[in-house]
């Protein structure tokens, strides 16, 4: 079995090679290095997991840990550079390297005519390195290195088209909002170290598991809420979700890989990894569930009215991430990760399909300028349709399994959560099929001659389509990760009725979308006119960006400008420095008049001076 460190090393090598020499290598070699390194990583993952027996249903629940060297030793603090694999990280490894490989292949086609080709793949490989480090890390600090690294790569890739102000602004926004979350993460990690004396997952969780559930609730609540702030930043939950829709300014493969399939699920992974801590704090669990559900509802409603195809899927991602946190919050960590996996399939496919459409439409993203594309881009249409079925929870697609499981688990906690979730599921189906119908059905409303994408783009689409449809029952992540769920006394038995209702909600959403956008297209407009006020609120995303701008951003800018810059820096600090300088100048100016240049005036001063000194000495009794 190959060592674990090989897995992240391949993409790192690829990033270094492409980053340093890519400019001179030519596109073919750059693509080969980029895809080859991820493929090597994927193969290593397969070998490692096979060697550990992770592919069987009876895979070991104990983690396989490899300790390489002591990274930081200072007083009580002793942190090793340790990597580990258990069932949870095995699932994440498969998703990251598998989906990552497909998206790398796709990107060679999508980016073929873009400038900075080697730069793009260097960043993308670097992202893979950090993401794998995040997933493999055996303590919170190694995880945090990956956590920060993916944030950096996200920033670099969102701002990839850095000549456009929108893109670089979006990159900054993503980075800054994530810093807020990271602040919570670090505080949570400090608190863990202060109370458990270690950051090692094994040590922390075994100590926490030994504590009775009615003890230290406040401590666990504080730790978990702080960690959840970090997760909310990375995984775009209320109130830190605002960066993700803007992140769509990056190239579409980036949206698919980082802002749909992998990086944004890091928060869910981190919460599930810390399941032992979270289950000790009912308050934190409820917070996670409520925030997750609120995010799911809010983002879904915004998604209903957006016309930019990538924006629709961005809000959809936020919404689906909300579902995952809902699952974690009700204790169904296994279903949360299940949804991570199925979501990675169908959301990556949605984004890649959207990228294919955008590619075909020559960088047009507005759905009102599309339409009727189904026979011009048939492969894209069929695969995207499969993804839409999956996210809508159509029976026996991948999304059906994970979403139903989450909703049932939510019902076990509270029927209110379930019913709101069901309504959201209906909205999800509606907005996704709205995007499908607007893009592929009806009359063509755009310009030019759309064409199907090259084979390097369509093959990943087809593979992902198969996974979106069949991934749910091919990989039963829910039972594979059941060990994450705290054991309750009572036996949970599935209520089939709950599943039927959720599925029906999805089908109703699809039917409504059909009615509004295919059968009677004028209905959508008259609906929007009838509900002008709510429509405008949704179209403007509840004015959250504007609210943040006036409540947080503007006061900070004005405070920095008026108080810190003009007041503190210019007024106080510069005032002191300039004041001292001015004082010296004034005194010097006075003394300057003594220096006339006339020798005789100097001599006169000497004489006067000596007379004064002699007089003074005589008056004081003379020199003895």
């Amino acid at each position: 079995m190959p060592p674990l460190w090989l897995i992240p090393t391949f993409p790192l090598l690829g990033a270094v090679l492409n980053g340093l020499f890519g400019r001179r290598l030519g596109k073919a070699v750059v693509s080969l290095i980029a895809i080859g390194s991820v493929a090597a990583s994927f193969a290593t993952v397969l070998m490692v997991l096979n060697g550990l027996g992770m592919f069987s249903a009876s895979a070991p629940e104990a983690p396989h840990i490899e300790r390489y060297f002591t990274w930081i030793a200072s007083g009580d603090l002793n942190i090793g550079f340790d990597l580990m694999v258990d069932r949870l990280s095995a699932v994440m490894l498969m998703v990251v390297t598998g989906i990552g490989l497909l998206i790398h292949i796709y990107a060679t086609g999508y980016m073929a005519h873009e400038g900075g080709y080697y730069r793009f793949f260097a960043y993308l490989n670097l992202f893979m390195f950090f993401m794998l480090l995040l997933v493999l890390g055996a303590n919170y600090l190694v995880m945090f290195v990956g956590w920060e690294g993916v944030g950096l790569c996200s920033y670099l890739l969102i701002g990839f088209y850095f000549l456009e102000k929108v893109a670089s602004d979006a990159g900054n926004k993503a980075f800054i909002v994530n810093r807020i979350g990271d602040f919570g993460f670090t505080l949570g990690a400090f608190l863990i170290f202060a109370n458990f004396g270690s950051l090692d997952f094994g040590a922390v969780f075994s100590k926490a598991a030994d504590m009775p559930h009615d003890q230290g609730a406040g401590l666990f609540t504080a730790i978990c809420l702080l960690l959840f702030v970090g997760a909310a930043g990375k995984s775009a939950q209320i109130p830190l979700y605002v960066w993700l829709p803007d992140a769509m300014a990056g190239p579409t493969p980036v949206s698919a890989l980082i802002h749909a399939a992998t990086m944004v699920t890091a928060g869910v992974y981190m919460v599930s990894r810390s399941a032992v801590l979270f289950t000790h704090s009912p308050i934190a669990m409820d917070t996670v569930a409520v925030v997750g559900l609120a995010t799911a509802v809010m983002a879904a409603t915004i998604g209903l009215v957006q016309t930019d195809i990538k924006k629709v899927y961005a809000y959809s991602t936020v919404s689906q991430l909300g579902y995952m946190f809902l699952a974690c919050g009700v204790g169904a960590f296994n279903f949360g990760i299940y949804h991570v996996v199925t979501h990675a399939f169908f959301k990556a496919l949605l984004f890649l399909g959207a990228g294919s459409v955008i590619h075909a439409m020559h960088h047009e993203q507005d759905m009102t300028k599309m339409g009727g594309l189904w026979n011009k881009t048939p492969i894209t249409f069929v695969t995207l349709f499969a993804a839409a079925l999956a996210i809508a929870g159509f029976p026996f697609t991948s999304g059906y399994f994970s979403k139903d499981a989450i909703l049932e688990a939510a019902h076990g906690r509270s029927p209110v959560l379930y019913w709101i979730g069901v309504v959201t599921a209906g909205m999800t189906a509606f907005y996704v099929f709205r995007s499908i119908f607007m893009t592929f059905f009806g009359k063509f409303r755009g310009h030019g001659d759309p064409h199907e994408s090259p084979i390097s783009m369509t093959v990943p689409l087809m593979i992902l389509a198969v996974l979106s449809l069949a991934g749910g029952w091919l990989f039963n992540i829910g039972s594979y990760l059941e060990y994450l769920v705290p054991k309750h006394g009572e036996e949970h038995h599935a209520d089939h009725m709950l599943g039927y209702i959720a599925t029906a909600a999805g089908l109703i959403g699809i039917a409504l979308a059909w009615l509004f956008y295919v059968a009677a297209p004028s209905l959508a407009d008259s609906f929007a006119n009838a509900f002008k006020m709510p429509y405008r609120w949704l179209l403007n995303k509840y004015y959250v960006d504007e609210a943040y701008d006036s409540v947080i951003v503007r006061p900070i800018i004005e405070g920095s400008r008026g108080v810190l810059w003009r007041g503190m820096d210019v007024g106080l600090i510069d005032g002191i420095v300039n004041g001292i300088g001015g004082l010296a100048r004034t005194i010097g100016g006075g003394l300057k008049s003594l220096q006339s240049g006339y020798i005789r005036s100097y001599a006169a001063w000497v004489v006067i001076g000596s007379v004064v000194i002699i007089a003074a000495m005589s008056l004081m009794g003379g020199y003895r």
Partner: protein
Amino acid sequence: MPPLPELPAATPVAWYLLLSAVLFAIGAAGFLFRKNIITVFMCIELMLNAVNLSFVAFSYQFKQVDGHIFSFFVMVVAAAEAAVGLGIILTVFKNRNTLHIDEVDSLKN
């Protein structure tokens, strides 16, 4: 060492000092009020020699040799200063074509 010959008692040391002070005052006044650099220069010599006179007078009064030594030092310095000073004066005259002291004022400010 044979004893020094007695001085005529009629000449007290104060007279020498008075003469020295008068000479010094004349030198200082000339330094301050004359405009020709050469004259100013000569006034400096006058002040130096006035001081020399008081050194020698004290030396004789207290029967100590220190004052004599000091006055020799002063003479050496005065000689060196005369060489350098006259050189400067010549150069100033060559460059500025004047020996008026108030016109040599480029060090001001």
